[in-house]
């Protein structure tokens, strides 16, 4: 049922009540009025039944409508104290809205102004002007103290309120109070029920959420547990796939777990491995140290690292590097120890092999008097092998610097050494020999060879070897000395064949000098000396002296034991030197000598004396080969010409004689040492000649003549670049 739309159907249309006093004056009227009054009262009393289940605003609206109609009011106003809301509910009904255009609040204010602030002191009724009308207003409290609110009824009638009207009003007010209280109660109940429902719903939803979270948590935990299990599986997998033997130990050092490899390697069970200290798992020689070291680590918490031999299932002990690390709780306590055993056996064996090979190397270097070094050019860091310290006679481990090396280098070699160092900074291969001057003034000869390389940092680094070649050097020097003495002996021997010729060459000018000197003496003995004659004689004396000394110096050159000295020379001069000494021998032996030397003979680089020796030897041989030749056919031809041999420009010199020659099968042996065809010959001349020519980078060989005799030839590389 809706009260908002209209007056309840049971209610009669309120009629205008006549005044009580009038009713008493007219009994019929009075009865009617009373009846009506009773009807009204009944209607009013019935109101709460109608209101049952309605809310307060419906109750108030119904009340207002009923009172306005029933009592023919012009205005009715209700204000309800709303304990829960700040603002009270105000409602008003007017009979003629057009005469009072005001909202309930404005009406409420107007009424308050008429009635005063305190409801306890309100008059029973008051006449006041509201809007443009004078209205009698009656305030009625709802509830004993007006705690629910109040009703104000207003009418333009002067007699308002009549006795019945007041009764009706108060009954209505009581009924309204009851209805409102019920409604309040009901609404309170509703509110509470609703609140309860809400709380239940809220609690239910909270519980649902909690449940959800719980579910999530459970799933989470399950996942975490799964992850832990997975992680454990992975850990196990990792442990089992590590290329090493892993064991974990409790903080006090008992074996906790081991990986598959360790089990397989040892061929023992975990339980057996827990007794490793007594089961010969670790090599007996290592065991005391191992136990000692593990105890130390466990006590101190320091990582463990030790090389140990561990027994394989087949009983063979292999070397392992055992590393133990403590795994700690967040608070720092050790949770367990993890020991990784890495098989070192191959490396150990390689190390031993390396040590052996290093020992061999050191021995080899000792024997060879050879040492190695490395040199970082940028930082001048130098590293030496042990033997190098021996060679330099420095204490092992001294820091090697260029200055330190320089302090040993022979003063005459220092500048060469510095040049080499500067050269080496450019990163080239280098090799040189230098000397050391030792503190005892002895001299060592070193041969150094080094190659540049780039190390891992890309820096230039030399690796090299140094050999003490002193002994070899001394031997070489001794050999050189012997060789040079032999060469010298051969030269003197060759020269011996020309003694007569040489004597003649010297005696000739000497005789001339004596003659001239004596001539001078006798010229001077005369009273008037012939000065012109004397001058001529003296001039010739000087000429003779020059001539003799020139020959003597040539001979001295050949006889002297001079060290080999290379100069650029022309073979034409060498030929002339030799022929000067030999020409009288040729004359004596009636040998005709012919020379055919090309004008454009290029120079060669060589030792003049040695080349003279070679030619001398060939010429004397040729001369002696013709001893038995008919005098008219004795001739010796020396030819010289430039040639290209093997794309190289050479000077070819040939000596041809017409003597006894040699057989073709002798050709190879001819140049060998100690081979001779001469009764008094040593057989050294040609061998030495050949070694001299070969030392000059040339070649010496023999050919047979077309007719009688032999041809000896030698070629020497032309000196310098091509010259036309």
């Amino acid at each position, binding site marked *: 049922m809706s009260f908002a739309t209209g007056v309840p159907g049971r209610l009669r249309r309120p009629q205008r009540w006549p005044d009580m006093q009038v009713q008493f004056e007219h009994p019929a009227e009075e009865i009617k009025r009373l009846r009506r009054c009773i009807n009204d009262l009944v209607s009013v009393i019935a109101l709460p039944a109608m209101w049952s289940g309605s809310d307060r605003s419906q109750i108030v609206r119904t009340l207002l409508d009923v009172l306005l109609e029933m009592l023919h009011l012009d205005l009715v106003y209700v204000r309800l104290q709303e304990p829960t809301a700040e603002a009270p509910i105000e409602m008003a009904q007017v009979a003629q809205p057009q005469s009072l255009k005001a909202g309930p609040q404005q009406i409420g204010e107007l009424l308050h102004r008429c009635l005063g602030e305190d409801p306890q002191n309100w008059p029973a009724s008051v006449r006041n002007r509201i809007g443009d009308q004078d209205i009698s207003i009656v305030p009625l409290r709802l509830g004993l103290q007006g705690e629910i609110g109040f009703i104000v009824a207003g009418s333009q009638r002067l007699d308002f309120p009549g006795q019945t009207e007041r009764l009706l009003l108060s009954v209505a007010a009581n009924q309204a109070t009851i209805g409102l209280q019920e409604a309040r109660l009901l609404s309170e109940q509703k509110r509470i029920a609703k609140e309860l429902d809400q709380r239940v719903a809220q609690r239910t939803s909270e519980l649902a959420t909690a449940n959800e979270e719980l579910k999530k948590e459970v799933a989470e935990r399950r996942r975490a547990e799964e992850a832990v299990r997975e992680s454990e599986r992975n850990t196990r997998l990792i442990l089992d796939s590590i290329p090493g033997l892993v064991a974990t130990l409790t903080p006090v050092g008992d074996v906790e777990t081991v990986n598959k490899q360790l089990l397989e390697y040892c061929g023992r069970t975990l339980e057996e491995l827990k007794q490793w200290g007594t089961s010969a798992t670790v090599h007996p020689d290592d065991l005391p140290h191992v136990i000692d070291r593990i105890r130390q680590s466990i006590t101190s918490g320091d990582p463990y690292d030790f090389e140990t031999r561990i027994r394989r299932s087949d009983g063979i002990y292999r070397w392992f590097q055992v590393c133990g690390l403590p795994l700690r709780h967040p608070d720092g306590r050790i949770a367990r120890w993890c020991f990784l055993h890495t098989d070192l056996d191959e490396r150990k064996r390689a190390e031993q092999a390396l040590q052996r090979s290093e020992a061999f190397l050191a021995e080899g270097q000792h024997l060879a008097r050879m040492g190695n070094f490395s040199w970082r050019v940028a930082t001048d860091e130098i590293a030496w092998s042990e033997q190098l310290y021996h060679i330099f006679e420095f204490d092992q481990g001294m820091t090697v610097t260029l200055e330190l090396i320089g302090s040993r280098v022979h003063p005459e070699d220092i500048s060469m050494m510095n040049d080499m160092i500067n050269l080496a900074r450019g990163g080239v291969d280098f090799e040189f020999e230098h000397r050391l001057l030792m503190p005892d003034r002895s001299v060592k000869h070193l041969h150094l060879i080094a190659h540049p390389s780039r190390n891992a940092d890309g820096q230039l680094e030399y690796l090299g070897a140094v050999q003490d070649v002193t002994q070899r050097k001394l031997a070489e020097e001794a050999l050189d000395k012997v060789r040079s003495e032999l060469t010298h002996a051969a030269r003197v021997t060759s020269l011996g064949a020309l003694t007569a010729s040489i004597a003649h060459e010297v*005696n000739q000018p000497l005789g001339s000098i004596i003659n001239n000197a004596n001539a001078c003496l006798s010229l001077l003995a005369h009273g008037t000396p012939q000065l012109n004659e004397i001058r001529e004689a003296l001039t010739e004396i000087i000429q*003779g002296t020059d001539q003799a000394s020139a020959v003597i110096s040539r001979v001295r050159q050949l006889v002297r034991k001079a060290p080999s000295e290379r100069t650029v020379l022309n073979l034409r001069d060498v030929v002339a030197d030799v022929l000067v000494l030999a020409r009288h021998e040729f004359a004596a032996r009636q040998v005709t000598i012919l020379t055919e030397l090309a004008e454009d003979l290029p120079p060669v680089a060589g030792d003049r004396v040695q080349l003279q020796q070679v030619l001398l030897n060939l010429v004397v041989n040729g001369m002696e080969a013709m001893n038995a030749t008919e005098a008219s056919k004795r001739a010796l031809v020396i030819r010289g010409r430039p040639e290209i041999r093997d794309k190289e420009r050479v000077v070819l010199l040939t000596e041809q004689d017409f003597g006894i020659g040699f057989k073709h099968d002798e050709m190879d042996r001819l140049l060998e040492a100690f081979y001779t065809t001469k009764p008094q010959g040593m057989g050294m001349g040609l061998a030495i000649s050949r070694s001299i020519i070969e030392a000059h980078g040339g070649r010496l060989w023999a050919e047979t003549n077309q007719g009688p005799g032999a041809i000896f030839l030698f070629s020497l590389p032309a000196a310098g670049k091509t010259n036309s």
Partner: protein
Amino acid sequence: MNAVEPIVFLVDDDQLFRRSTERLIRTAGLNVQPFSSARDFLKSPRPEGPACLVLDVRMPGLSGMDLQRELAQSGFHIPIIFITGHGDIPTSVRAMKAGAVEFLTKPFRSRVLLDAIRAAIERDRSALQKQSETRELRERYEQLTPREREVMTLVAKGLLNKQVAGELSTTEATIKFHRAHIMQKMRANSLADLIRMVEKLGSSRQR
């Protein structure tokens, strides 16, 4: 004959030595004629007066020894003084055997050479003298008849006239006759004189 000045011939291929030797000899007051080769010397005219030859042993072409041999063959008996830069014994012996008067090794003392030259000239002078005497004897000898030559040879051998007669199957008187002719033609003053002449003729027959 003594009017002809002695002359020293000098053959040496070494110019310096040749000139100094020439100067030495000249300043010693002797005539000297130098040659640089044996061939040149051979081409030159032979001297009339006493002379000697100073000769180098070793020379290109014709050597000193060759020249000595050639001169001997051609009958030019000039005294030769050999000089050499290097004297070896075999060469010097060969040279001396072939008639060299001296063999000097360079360098030698100037006096030694000059003494040798003077000795050689004297020797040549006397040789020339002897040679001219022999020539006169021969001319005289040429005037003898063959019979007189036969007689003279036997007489010079010391045979008596009778023995000579017996040898030649004739009479002693005939021999005496021949002898007188011989003594006259040969201008011999005595038998001893004649014998010496015969010896000279005999010894010079080889020259």
